[in-house]
């Protein structure tokens, strides 16, 4: 049967990755992968939700790791993957374990994680730092200390695009670099307001505010890859961006360690969150389609497919036993960190509703754009959001 898949993988690299899935699925037999690409996660997710509501759901749909689909599961609109997962023993090989927990709702599994992306990376232009005569920073405090020299050398110290999600993401990274796993979980998971109002958060906000002074005036509305391009061209020294930025450097022919450096954390003690993409399978009337959906789910976690897919996508696989010989240095660092569960955290999106995440994004965006907001005020509002989060 035909299984229509909605996803937002429309760029060159993504397209290659999604083709792996499609090829492998088609190769399984009579079933067929029907591709519906809609650029922009927001657009694609909306389309999935709305079509599901309209009674014309796709056979499979890409989502981010988050609580966005809880309600779909609650409403019984999703195919229950538990029997398949039990049979194939997903719990045994998918790691870190947290990533599968995301798919669990009231004891049942409703989705398939297919890759891991982490936000906690800083990308530095090696020539830029050399030109300014400073060492590559190991943490953010180092970086801020080195910034004046970079500026003197005519280099933009900190590259960022002014879109809310870039700012929010970067702030999350700054925050985690200060809080560590414990603090992170205390705030988002346990809603500990003391920690939220504590000195680590305050320092994180201070760093965040000083980063603002290190950007260029073109940052407003700049897309993230245009921003990355500044680092590639050595006009800017450092960008905080998720591991997907690696693809940009690769395409530009840059070599890790020589032309650019990836700094996990950025901190001496780096933590990585386990964002990434998942697929869920809306319930269908046709049993043939349902069978095909299960086949597809199984295919997606298949080790060979995982290897091919993640190599193409430049992301980390969801299981250990895959061949990642093609991975570059940065990726290998990431894989290494992921092996230690103590350094793996769950993104805020797991603990908070999309609504609260959005409120945080708004807060960081406002704090970024409005220098008049004091650190105390920002922190107070942060505490308020955490307090009111569901």
């Amino acid at each position, binding site marked *: 049967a035909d299984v229509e898949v909605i996803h937002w993988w429309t760029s060159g690299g993504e397209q290659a990755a999604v083709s792996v899935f499609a090829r492998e699925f088609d190769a399984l037999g009579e079933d067929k992968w029907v591709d519906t690409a809609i650029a922009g996660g927001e657009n694609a997710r*909306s389309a999935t939700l709305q079509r599901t509501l309209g009674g014309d759901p796709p056979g499979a749909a890409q989502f981010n790791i988050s609580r*966005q689909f809880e309600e779909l599961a609650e409403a019984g609109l999703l195919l229950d993957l538990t029997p398949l997962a039990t049979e194939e023993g997903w719990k045994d090989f998918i790691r870190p374990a947290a990533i599968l927990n995301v798919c669990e709702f009231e004891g049942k599994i409703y989705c398939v994680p297919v890759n891991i992306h982490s936000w906690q990376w800083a990308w530095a232009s090696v020539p830029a730092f050399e030109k300014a005569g400073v060492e590559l920073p190991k943490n953010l405090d180092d970086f801020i200390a080195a910034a004046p020299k970079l500026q003197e050398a005519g280099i933009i110290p900190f590259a960022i695009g002014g879109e*809310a999600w870039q700012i929010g993401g970067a702030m999350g990274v700054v925050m985690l670099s200060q809080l560590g796993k414990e603090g992170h979980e205390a705030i988002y998971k346990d809603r500990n307001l003391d920690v939220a109002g504590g000195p680590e958060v305050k320092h994180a906000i201070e760093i965040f505010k000083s980063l603002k002074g290190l950007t260029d*005036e*073109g940052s*407003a509305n700049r897309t993230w890859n245009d921003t990355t391009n500044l680092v590639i061209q050595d006009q800017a020294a450092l960008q905080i961006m998720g591991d997907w930025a690696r693809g940009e450097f690769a395409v530009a022919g840059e070599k890790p360690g020589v032309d650019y450096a990836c700094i996990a954390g950025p901190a001496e003690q780096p933590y990585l969150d386990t964002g990434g993409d998942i697929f869920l399978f809306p319930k269908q009337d046709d049993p043939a389609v349902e069978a095909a959906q299960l086949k597809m789910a199984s295919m997606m976690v298949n080790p060979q497919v995982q290897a091919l897919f993640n190599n193409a996508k430049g992301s980390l696989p969801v299981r250990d036993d895959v061949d990642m010989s093609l991975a570059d240095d940065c990726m290998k660092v990431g894989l290494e960190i992921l092996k230690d569960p103590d350094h793996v955290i769950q993104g805020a999106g797991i603990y908070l509703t999309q609504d609260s995440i959005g409120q945080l994004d708004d807060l960081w*965006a*406002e704090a970024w*754009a*409005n220098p008049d907001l004091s650190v105390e005020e920002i922190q107070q509002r942060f505490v308020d959001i955490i307090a009111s989060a569901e």
Partner: protein
Amino acid sequence: MAQLATANEGGAVVKTASSSGRKPFRITTLMSVIGTLPLILTAVGVFVICIIYSFVLSFTNSRIFPAFGPENFVGTDQYSRLWATGRWLVSVNNLWFFGLLSIVANMTAGYLLAVFMDQRIKAEDWFRSIFLYPFAMSLVITGLVWRWILDPNYGIQATVRGLGFTDFTFAPLVNASTAIYGLVVAGIWNGVGVTMAIMLAGLRGVDAEIWKAAKIDGIPTWRTYLFIVLPMMRGAILTAFILQCVGVVRVFDLVVAMTQGGPGIATQMPAVFVIQHITDRSNVGLGMAAATMMLLPVVILLGVQAFAQWRANKAKGY
């Protein structure tokens, strides 16, 4: 009246039946109702029901999907949260500011262009097409291109600096306090052609003799345009104004494509707020509360107008 009596010689006839009886149901009325069935369905079935639906939803804590369970009703919580949300307040302010500025600017520019187009110029067709074509472009594209042009590193600023004016600064989108002007410029670029066309049609509809009278009175052309002709174009102005209002209230694509509401939340708009909350932010209840608030001014305006009309009709005796 004596003459009338003679006209009435057949008075014996049905004179007693002074009433002509009930008006029979006309097949044409039925046809009219049938013919406007799509209208009825749309007006009642879509707009009324949808608005009521949205209104009811705004009292629930619906997240992704509309939820009407008794446990979902949360009273006016969404409204209190809405008005405590900084971003919403900024959005509302922005809408007024953006709306007023862009409508005024659009109408002014549209009228000005129309006036210049009215000077029996050569190549009128060309100019008209040039002013109109942006309307054919979707706002998404408009936003994208203007983002480029206003980008300090690519666009006008960079180009002028490249010419040697290294101090030249023109980057409205970068600054939270000026970004909204960037939106206005792009909005005008997109929509002023239609305003111009409407105004031009209005200008051409003005009685030629008014022009002659003004010339004989020795009234300078610009004063004639401003003080005599402009007040005569109520229909054209109203049409353009309504079109503008609809566009402003719904402004979404342009903001998303140009600034994504930034820098910070400086260019957030109510429509963006609503749409984000009912889609990605998964808080339909709050989104619907915001949508209801957006419709409020329109309801008030229409209500006032209907009331005024009702009063006027009553005074006239309809």
